[in-house]
C-alpha cells in the first residue's frame, strides 16, 4: 500500500501504436455464473484441458495465414481467467509468444475474480509477464455481492488487491457497479470511497445492465425485481463522474476512469477502431474494417478446431457509413468528438443549430475542433449519437 498511483516512475507502458495488434483471450469458465452477466462462460470445467489445447491450436491456425504480427496489448478475460492454473496460462502465453512478435513493454492484463487469487498465482502472473490486473470487485457490501451471486466477499477484494501489490503489480483496475436494484446513492459513494482508498490506477464503474438472456432479465420480466429508474441511474452516474473527477481520475470512457497515463490501452483499441484479434469462444476480432467473431459455445469451438477450422461464427465488412457511425458513437463514448476528423475523414459536419442546442442545454462544450461531453452529456451519450447518426449531420 501507499504507492502513489500518479507516480510517473511506475507509469505502466508506452503509448500503443495503432499498427500493432491487441490480443484478447477469452477463458470461458467461471466457478459460478453471475446472474447479471451475459458474457459467455460455463460452470462445467471438465473440458479445460481440451480448451487449452484448442486455444493453442486456434492461435497457431490463425498465425498460419497471418504470421508474426506485432502485438502490444494482451488481455485475458472471461469468464474467469484466474481459474486457469499457472501452467495452463503459461502454455497459452508461450504459444502467443511463439506466433506473434510481442513488443518489449506490452500492456498485459489478466482479469481476476478476487475470490480466486492467492500469492502463488499472482506471482506466477508476474513471471508470465502480466503487468496489469483487473479485479471484479463490484461492491464492498457483502449483501450486494451475495445479491449479484459473486463468489467473493468484500474482505477478499481488499486482500486480493493488497496481495497483488505485494506481488509487484503496479497497474491495477477495480470494477465497481452502481444502479443495483434498491441501491442508495450513499452506498454508491461509499463503494467509491473504499475503492479509491485502495489506490487503484484505474476504476471501471458501470451501471448494472439488464441483459436479455440472463437470470436477472427474467427476474425483472416477471416483476420480481425492479431495476433502478432512469432518473436514479442518471443521478448516480453523475455522482460517480463528479466523485472520480474530484479524486483526480480522468474520465476517459463512459464507465472508465484512470489515473493519468493509466488508461487501459487494450480497451482503447476497441474504442478507437484499431485492430485486435480475439481467441477463444465468443471472442471478437477487428482488422481493417472487417469484424468477425467466434462461436459462443465451448462444444462448437472444440469441434471446429478438432477439424482444424477456425471457429469463426460470422463476419461483417463495414460499409463506409458503418465506419462513420462507429467512429461517431465510439468517440462520443470517450466524451469527445473531433469535428475536424468528421470533415476530413467522412466529409460531414454537425448541424450548427443542433450543436448550439446541445451547448445551451449543457450537454457539451466546444474546445477547438472538439465537441466535449459534459457530465450531463454522458448520461444521454447514446441519444446524442443517435441524433447525429440519424438526423443532425450534413455533408460538406
Amino acid at each position: 500500500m501507499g504507492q502513489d498511483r500518479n507516480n510517473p516512475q511506475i507509469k505502466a507502458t508506452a503509448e500503443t501504436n495503432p499498427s500493432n495488434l491487441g490480443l484478447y483471450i477469452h477463458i470461458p469458465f467461471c466457478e459460478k455464473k453471475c446472474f447479471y452477466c451475459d458474457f459467455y462462460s460455463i460452470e462445467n470445467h471438465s473440458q479445460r484441458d481440451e480448451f487449452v489445447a484448442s486455444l493453442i491450436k486456434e492461435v497457431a491456425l490463425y498465425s498460419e495465414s497471418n504470421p508474426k504480427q506485432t502485438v502490444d496489448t494482451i488481455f485475458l478475460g472471461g469468464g474467469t481467467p484466474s481459474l486457469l492454473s499457472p501452467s495452463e496460462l503459461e502454455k497459452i502465453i508461450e504459444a502467443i509468444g511463439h506466433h506473434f512478435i510481442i513488443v518489449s513493454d506490452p500492456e498485459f492484463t489478466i482479469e481476476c475474480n478476487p475470490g480466486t487469487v492467492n500469492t502463488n498465482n499472482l506471482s506466477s502472473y508476474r513471471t508470465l509477464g502480466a503487468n496489469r490486473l483487473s479485479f471484479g470487485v463490484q461492491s464492498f457490501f457483502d449483501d450486494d455481492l451475495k445479491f449479484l451471486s459473486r463468489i467473493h466477499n468484500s474482505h477478499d477484494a481488499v486482500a486480493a488487491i493488497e496481495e497483488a501489490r505485494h506481488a509487484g503489480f503496479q497497474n491495477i483496475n477495480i470494477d465497481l457497479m452502481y444502479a443495483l436494484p434498491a441501491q442508495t446513492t450513499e452506498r454508491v459513494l461509499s463503494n467509491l470511497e473504499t475503492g479509491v482508498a485502495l489506490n487503484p490506477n484505474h476504476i471501471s464503474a458501470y451501471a448494472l445492465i439488464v441483459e436479455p438472456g440472463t437470470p436477472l432479465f427474467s427476474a425483472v420480466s416477471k416483476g420480481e425485481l425492479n431495476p433502478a429508474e432512469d432518473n436514479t441511474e442518471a443521478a448516480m452516474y453523475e455522482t460517480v463522474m463528479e466523485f472520480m473527477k474530484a479524486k483526480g481520475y480522468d474520465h476517459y470512457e463512459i464507465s472508465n476512469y484512470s489515473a493519468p497515463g493509466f488508461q487501459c490501452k487494450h480497451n482503447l483499441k476497441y474504442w478507437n477502431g484499431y485492430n485486435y484479434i480475439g481467441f477463444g469462444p465468443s471472442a471478437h476480432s477487428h482488422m481493417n474494417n472487417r469484424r468477425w467473431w467466434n462461436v459462443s459455445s465451448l462444444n462448437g469451438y472444440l469441434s471446429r478446431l478438432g477439424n482444424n477450422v477456425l471457429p469463426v461464427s460470422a463476419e461483417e465488412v463495414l460499409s463506409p457509413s458503418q465506419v462513420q457511425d462507429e467512429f461517431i458513437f465510439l468517440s462520443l463514448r470517450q466524451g469527445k468528438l473531433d469535428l475536424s476528423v468528421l470533415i476530413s475523414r467522412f466529409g460531414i459536419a454537425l448541424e450548427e443549430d443542433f450543436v448550439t442546442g446541445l451547448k445551451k442545454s449543457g450537454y457539451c462544450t466546444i474546445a477547438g475542433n472538439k465537441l466535449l461531453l459534459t457530465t450531463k452529456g454522458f448520461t444521454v451519450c447514446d441519444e446524442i449519437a443517435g441524433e447525429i447518426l440519424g438526423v443532425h449531420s450534413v455533408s460538406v
Partner: protein
Amino acid sequence: MSLSPQLIRNFCIIAHIDHGKSTLADRLLERTGTIAQRQMVDQILDDMPLERERGITIKSHAIQMKYGARDGNAYTLNLIDTPGHVDFSYEVSRSLAACEGAILVVDASQGVEAQTISNVYMAVDAGLEIVPVINKIDLPSAMVEDVKKQLVDLIGCKEEDILLASAKAKIGIDEVLEAVVNRIPPPAGNVDAPTRALIFDAKYDSYRGVVTYIRIVDGVLKTNDKVSFHKTGKVFLAEEVGVLEINRVPTKELEAGNVGYLIAGVKELTDARVGDTVMNADNEAHDPLPGYREVKPMVFSGLYPAQSEHFEELRDALAKFKLNDAALLYEPETSTALGFGFRCGFLGLLHMEIVQERLEREFNQTIITTVPNVEYKVVRTNKEVLLVDNPAAMPSPAEIDHIEEPYVTAQIICPSEFIGNVMKLCMDRRGVYKNTTYIDTKRADIRFELPLAEIVFDFFDKLKSLTRGYASFDYEYLDTRESDLVKLDILLNGEVVDALSSVVHREKSYDWGRKLSSKLRKLIPKQLFEVVIQAAIGSKIIARESISPIRKNVIAKCYGGDITRKRKLLEKQKEGKKRMKQIGRVEVPQEAFLAVLSLNEEE
C-alpha cells in the same frame, strides 16, 4: 350472333353492408354455371384483397351470366355489382344507370337499414324495377314478417312480391333468377339508331390501357369501329369489344341493350371518363346520354411521404392509383412541418382509409396523413370568397367576415331504446334535430342536420358503440352554413406546426386544445431538449403541456470488442429517428399527426 334485347336483363343488387349482397351474387354465378363450384371463392366479384378482408365492395364490377329460364328461353343476365358504403354512393348511381332493375337485399335479422333506404331512393329515382329479397331467412333471429312490413312501407310493394332467400344456404336462388327474368323489363333501345354507349366504369390495365365498361343504349359497337368519346371529342379505334364473364371474352360486336367492355388504345382515364357517351365516329348520334354528376370530394387531408426523399415515389404511386380511382383528387402542397406532399380529396372517411391502406400495401409507400377536414367557404371582410380545404391556409381572423361549413342530412336507424343516446351524440356534434319516424314498433329512423366536420371525427365508431352496434348511418350533402369557427393551431417550442392545425367550433376550442395538447404529450417521445406543446387561437394560448428532456440513454458497458452489437442498437435508434418528422428541433412520430382522430377515446 345477334342477341334480342328481349332476352337480355341488366340488373344490380343493392343492400346495406353485410346484408349478403356478395354472397347472393356468388350463388347466382354458381347456379347459372358461370363459374364452376371448384373455382368459387367467397365474394368472387370483390377481387381486391382489401375488399375480401373487409367484406365490402369498393369498385363496381360487371359479369354476364346465361340462364335457362322456366319459360324455355336462354337469357343473358348482366349483373352489375355495386358498393354498399355511403362513401361510394356515386359508384352506385353509376351502376344504376346501366340497369333496368335492382334486386334489393335485406337481412332478415336486421331489417331495413340506412343504406337500404338511400340505395332504394337512388334506384327508384333511376326508374328501376325493384325486386325485394329478404335474405338469411334461415337464421334463428330472422324476423321475416317484420321485415316484410318494413319493405312494403318502404317501396310500396305487395307482400307476396317479396322473395325469401338464404344465399348462404342456397334457398330461393332460382326464384330470384326467375324474378329477374320476369319482373325486370328488357332493355329498351334502338339497334338501328346511331351508336350510343354509356361508360359506367373504367379501369386501367397495364397491358391494354384503359378498359371501359359500357352499356350499349342504341346501335351496335363493333371491333375496328372508329369510336369517339363525347366529352373529349377524341377518336380511337375499337381494338376489342366483348362481354364480361369471369374474364373478358372478346366478341365481334355488342348490340343495343347489352353490357360489355371496350378497349380502344386509350392511355389516360381522363380520355374515357366514366359517365361519358361512346359513339361511332363515322355516324355520330346527335345527343349524348345523360352523364353523372361530377364526384365531389367531401373530406380532405394531406398525404406526405414519411421520408421527404420519397416524394417522387409517392407522386408516381398516386398517379397510378388515380388510374383506377377517378374519385381521388390530389394536388401538390407544401407544409412547413412535413415538406412536400399532396392535399387529397376523398369521398368520405372510408374512402380515405382505403386509399391510404392501398397506397401502403399495394404501392409500398410509408405515408403520413394529416387530420382530415372538410372544405370551408371563407368570406373575407372584403367580401371575397375563398374555398379552404386545408386549415393551415385559413386567413387570419382579422381578415375573415365569416366562415361557412358544409352540412349534411344524416339518417340514423336504430332500435328505439337507443334514441336517447343517438340524440345526445348528435346534439354534442352540433346537430339540428329534424324528425323521427318509426320503421316499425322497435326501430326508429332519426334525421339530423349535422356539420360534416363533426362526423369526420370518429362519429360512426361512437354511434356504433352507443347503440351496441345496432345503428346504421347514412348521410347526404345538404348545404353550407355560417358557423362560429376558429382555427386552432398547435405550437411546438413556439413554432406553429401547420400540419396539426384544425378548424373547430369556438365553443369547443378550449376543450379541444387541451385534449389535443395532452394527447400529443403522450405521443411525442422524450428528447434531448424540453418540448413545449401549446394550443393557440390566433395569438392566444389556450393550453400548454411540456415534455421534460430525456434523462438517461447510455449503455454502460462496451467491453470485449463486440462493437457490432452496440452499433446495431444505435442503427436501430437512428432508423427510428429517421422515421420521425423533424419540426424545428422536435422529432414528431407519424401517429401524432392523426392524434385528433382518437381524442374522444379519452373522455
